[in-house]
């Protein structure tokens, strides 16, 4: 059953991705990218990554879509039809994709409990995290306690990006006319 849902979600992801490339109406593209993120979040739930699914649904499907819509109101919502045929990009993509698929042969099978990734440090975190940090959720324990400095660095990145957005838009008329919209970046980013 889980296998069937997994395959269905993944196929839907691929279909939505192809639709995003083919559509010219940018409003539809933005809506589909929100659906893409939501499908991705559902897949994460299925793959046991519940914390990641929360974040992807809130940040990917929520804030990214709001940001993209905000930019659409400031720019044009229709993509022009290109003059050249995209043969070279298509060849590049097919060759790169074939190489990457060739590379997947060496990977451990999906869900294999004996894969090297599961045998090194992960069991120690699972065994020790609860009594060392007091948090039953191991992801929270690692994120906020063991790798707290990393999360601090992440906040720095978001702060820098926020300053960058403000600097970029401060020279233009946009910020004065539409102040609430671009201010949305930072509370969302800090989540």
């Amino acid at each position: 059953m889980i296998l069937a849902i997994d395959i269905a979600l993944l196929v839907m992801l691929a279909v939505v991705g192809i639709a995003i490339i083919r559509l010219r109406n940018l409003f539809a593209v933005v809506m589909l990218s929100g659906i893409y993120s939501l499908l991705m979040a559902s897949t994460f739930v299925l793959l046991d990554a519940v914390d990641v699914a929360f974040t992807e649904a809130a940040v990917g499907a929520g804030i990214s879509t709001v940001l993209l819509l905000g930019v659409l109101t400031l720019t044009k919502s229709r993509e022009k039809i290109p003059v050249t045929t995209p043969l070279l990009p298509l060849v590049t993509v097919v060759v790169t994709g074939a190489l990457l698929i060739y590379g997947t042969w060496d990977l451990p099978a999906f869900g294999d409990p004996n894969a090297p990734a599961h045998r090194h440090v992960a069991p120690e975190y699972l065994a020790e995290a609860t009594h060392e940090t007091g948090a039953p959720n191991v992801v929270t324990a690692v994120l906020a306690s063991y790798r707290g400095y990393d999360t601090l660095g992440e906040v720095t990145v978001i702060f820098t990006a926020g300053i960058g957005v403000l600097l970029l838009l401060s020279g233009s008329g946009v910020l004065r006319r539409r102040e609430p919209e671009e201010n949305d970046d930072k509370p969302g980013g800090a989540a």
Partner: protein
Amino acid sequence: MEVHGHFNYWIVVVLMMIGFYALIARGNLIKKIVGLNIFQASVFLLFISFGKVSGGSAPIIAEGIQAYSNPLPHVLILTAIVVGVATTALGLALVVRINEAYGTIEENEIAQMDSET
């Protein structure tokens, strides 16, 4: 789960190439940023797929559960998602400024204007 094998990884590659194609073949700057997001999300899916253990449960310690999925990829990807939206915001701010300066967000028109001046 044997039937599954590498299906997740193949879909990841397909999604990655869809994003890559949108990035290099499409001239519209907003489409490029959406393509970048697709590419990014496919990498997230790859990491989360690595972390899955068959028969495992979400890594929240509770009694009566024998196997958990690997929590470390989850932590990495949580950080990556938030950083990803920060870069998206920065890219979109650049698109707004380019639209103000050139009056278009099509790459070939911008290049044409640049070569004329």
